[in-house]
């Protein structure tokens, strides 16, 4: 009989659950996105996200079990992402997981959301990918790790201000493009010239650092649009060609930084495998450039498949590693929210 693990993920604005086996087979995976709730605010509103998780967590768990063709009584452990993320969001998943553990008397497993993003590559590869350099790019995180094993990560670099996905959202808002900003900027950039504007690539030339900074880039786009001073984006009449050129030039600058630092990290660590996860890893231009640069440098590249880039609970299959190691948590497990930033 296979052992089944129910995994829960509520670290930001996706309510997700999955059933995975001890052998890392994903039996079922359900994600309820909250994009439509946050769209008018141009970003995730933590209180709205927390409330939506409360409403959605039970239907998502129920639908996951239904699709897996399993009853709760057949579940052998419950895993939940408890770090990092939004405190109020993480808490909903955590207490739901604990209630299940109490009710069906199974062990609780803690999942590190960022390790899970990298584990999505391991899941898709169907074979060991460690040791590797891990690049996580999302709305909340832009970080580089030395990943000795699935549960052994060392932070080597991170953004010092905005995460890449956050910059995409904010620039999309300036350009009058829809939320979330990643897909809308990618679409606008298809018709644009990536060299139309020479936007800054902060820290890219600094070979001593593996950190990112996207705040200056965001400001550069703003100044190009409205100049310094208090902006009034609402009254702007933007030419579609200008929007496309700005989107393409902005995207190219972000991609240059991400690819450049990932390659620097590989050279510095001497590792020959790169794993990339997180919502921004769905960006087509980033994927293309990572493939080109990895091929040139002889690097084995694993990018999470599109369905596993944005937040999901299938990547909670990393819990299988802990399950096999007998690494369980007490019922008073807490959440460790926050974002990874380099000072």
């Amino acid at each position, binding site marked *: 009989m296979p052992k089944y693990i129910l995994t829960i993920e509520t670290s930001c604005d996706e309510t997700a659950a999955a059933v995975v086996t001890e052998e890392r087979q994903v039996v079922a995976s359900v994600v309820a996105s909250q994009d439509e709730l946050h769209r*008018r*605010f141009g970003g995730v*509103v933590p*209180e*709205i996200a*927390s*409330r939506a*998780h*409360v*409403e959605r*967590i*039970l*239907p998502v*768990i*129920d639908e996951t079990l239904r699709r897996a063709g399993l009853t*709760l009584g057949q579940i052998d452990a419950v895993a939940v992402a408890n770090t990092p993320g939004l405190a*109020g969001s993480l*808490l*909903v998943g*955590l*207490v*739901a997981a*604990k*209630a*299940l*553990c*109490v*009710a*069906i*008397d199974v062990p609780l497993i803690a999942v590190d959301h960022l390790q899970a993003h990298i584990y999505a590559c391991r899941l898709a590869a169907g074979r060991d990918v460690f040791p590797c350099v891990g690049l996580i790019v999302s709305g909340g995180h832009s970080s580089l790790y030395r990943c000795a094993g699935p549960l052994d990560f060392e932070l080597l670099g991170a953004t010092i201000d905005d995460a890449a996905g956050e910059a995409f959202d904010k620039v999309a808002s300036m350009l009058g493009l829809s939320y979330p900003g990643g897909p809308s900027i990618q679409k606008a950039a298809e018709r644009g010239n990536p060299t139309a504007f020479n936007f800054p690539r902060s820290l890219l030339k600094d070979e001593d650092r593996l950190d990112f900074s996207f705040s200056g880039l965001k400001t550069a786009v703003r100044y190009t649009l409205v100049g310094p001073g208090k902006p009034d984006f609402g009254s702007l009449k933007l030419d579609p060609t200008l929007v496309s050129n700005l989107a393409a030039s902005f995207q190219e600058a972000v991609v240059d930084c991400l690819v450049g630092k990932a390659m620097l990290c590989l050279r510095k660590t001497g590792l020959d495998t790169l794993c990339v996860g997180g919502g921004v890893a769905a960006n087509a231009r980033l994927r293309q450039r990572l493939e080109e640069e990895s091929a040139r440098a002889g690097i084995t590249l694993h990018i999470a498949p599109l369905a596993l880039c944005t937040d999901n609970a299938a990547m909670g299959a990393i819990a299988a590693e802990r399950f096999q190691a007998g690494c369980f948590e*007490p*019922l*008073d*497990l*807490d*959440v460790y929210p926050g974002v990874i930033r380099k000072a």
Partner: protein
Amino acid sequence: MRILALETTERIGGVAALEQGAVLAELTLEPDKRSAQSLAPGIKRLLAQVGWAPVEVELVAVTRGPGSFTGLRVGVTTAKTLAYAAGAEVLGIDTLETIAASAPQHVDTLEVAVDAQRGEVVAGRFARDDQGHFQPVEPARLIEVDAWLASLPSGMTLSGPILQRLVAGTEKNQLRDDLVILPADCWVPTAANVGRLAYRHYLAGRRDDLWTLSPHYSRRSAAEEKWDQRQIS
């Protein structure tokens, strides 16, 4: 009927087990931990103490607000998930009514208030019906602390956790001396009273839907309130 009652809207939560409305056991959650940490171990301890398997619970009762947003989410999510897994029913109980139920027998009418942040309270007035149960006189209202205090008629009896601030805290001396303040041990909701009220409401035919039960937040998110203000101006 076996009832598991949860209360997490105040700083220190509690859990209780009741059979036919009688309290078999009540536990206070660990005071130095937040309820997201302490609630599940508390439930497990309580069930062991009364010797119930989780599936033997028939009704999970929980304070559904007003109260701390985080506390409400912890309580309601735990109650619904437990009920789902145990095949039990679930019932949300009003926090103000739960607090009112702690008032001594001689009190017939009282006003209960909890902190709603940003200088406001959620306040409700209750009066005993002919069976001695407190019933709301009017719907609870979200109101500024000062306006609430000014609205109280002379001789009104007060209860609720807001009094911790107004009687003992930094804002003391705000209370007029023509108001009657209940003893401090009546101010907070208890899990035992959540369970007792749930039993009474259940017998009276009240039901909540497992899938749609959600907390009674006293206000929307700050982002939504600001958004509406911008639309008006």
